[in-house]
């Protein structure tokens, strides 16, 4: 090596080590696209469910504070099952695409950095899930979608310190949608579809375009 390049090389090594050890970058853009599609399908199915029951979605959401009759309890359960299935499907596809990417690039997925991201996402999400549970107990359905968006946004902002900076912007956008939705009770499904569906797909495309498009496979 040319001795004049040695300090440049050393600084490049330092920067690379600092980067590699502080940020989790393995998440694939396709994971975002897949999660977004799952969310859009789920929102569409939920919309259909609302139509099957003798109340409209807006009334369901605006039904704040009233006691629930049998129909509503049944709808609650179906929506809960739909939510759980959606989450698991989205998670499965997100994992699958990230796994495929890591096989291609040779970067292991599960290191202490991934662990840090998962913990930082999980804490606000669990707090949000408990809040939403109580919100449904009180029949304040209109607050479900904004609470999902707000807590998901906070979770992303919280974890963004340990991953690519785009995650922070995605978090702020979710937060913004959640706040607007707080004053547009009754339209939660649209806001939810925009946040979890459209934004995820856009984010996935941006990420893929920026980081993965020119990625070379490690032989």
């Amino acid at each position, binding site marked *: 090596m040319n001795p004049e390049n040695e300090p440049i090389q050393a600084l490049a090594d330092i920067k690379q*080590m*600092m980067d590699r050890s502080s940020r989790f970058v393995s998440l694939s853009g396709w994971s975002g696209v897949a999660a977004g599609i799952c969310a859009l399908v789920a929102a569409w199915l939920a919309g259909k469910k609302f139509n099957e029951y003798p109340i409209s979605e807006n009334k369901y959401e605006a039904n704040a504070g009233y006691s629930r009759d049998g129909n509503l309890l049944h709808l609650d359960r179906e929506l809960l099952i739909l939510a759980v299935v959606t989450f698991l499907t989205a998670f499965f596809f997100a994992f699958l695409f990230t796994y495929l990417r890591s096989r291609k690039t040779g970067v292991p997925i599960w290191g202490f950095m991934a662990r840090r991201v998962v913990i930082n996402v999980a804490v606000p999400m669990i707090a949000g899930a408990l809040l939403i549970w109580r919100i449904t107990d009180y029949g304040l359905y209109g607050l479900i979608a904004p609470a999902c968006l707000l807590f998901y946004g906070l979770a992303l902002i919280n974890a963004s310190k340990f991953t690519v900076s785009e995650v922070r912007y995605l978090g702020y956008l979710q937060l913004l949608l959640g706040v607007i939705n707080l004053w547009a009770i009754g339209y939660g499904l649209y806001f939810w579809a925009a946040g979890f569906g459209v934004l995820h797909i856009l984010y996935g495309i941006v990420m893929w375009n920026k980081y993965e498009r020119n990625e070379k496979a490690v032989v």
Partner: protein
Amino acid sequence: MKNPISGLNKIFDSRIRLGVMSVLVVNEEISFNDLKAMLEVTDGNLATHLVTLEENSFIKVHKGFIGRKTNTTYSITNVGERAFKDHVKALEGMIKGIK
């Protein structure tokens, strides 16, 4: 003019030791195994370099347990952080000197 090479630290001549310091400067605490995976080195090799860094009080060693397995973690000391930053500054100085 001050000789820019004077700030270079001999201890950081080793790429592995420099790598360890780079990781520790951005991570509060990191375990032996994570460090090993990060730097892609063998147990023995890493252990030797860690001892050198510890002897110079650049890093602190914490011995703990997870269940029955030992879990040794490392963190940077103030002395270590200063030495690392001086080293980086010296490297930058050398680059400026070349230009």
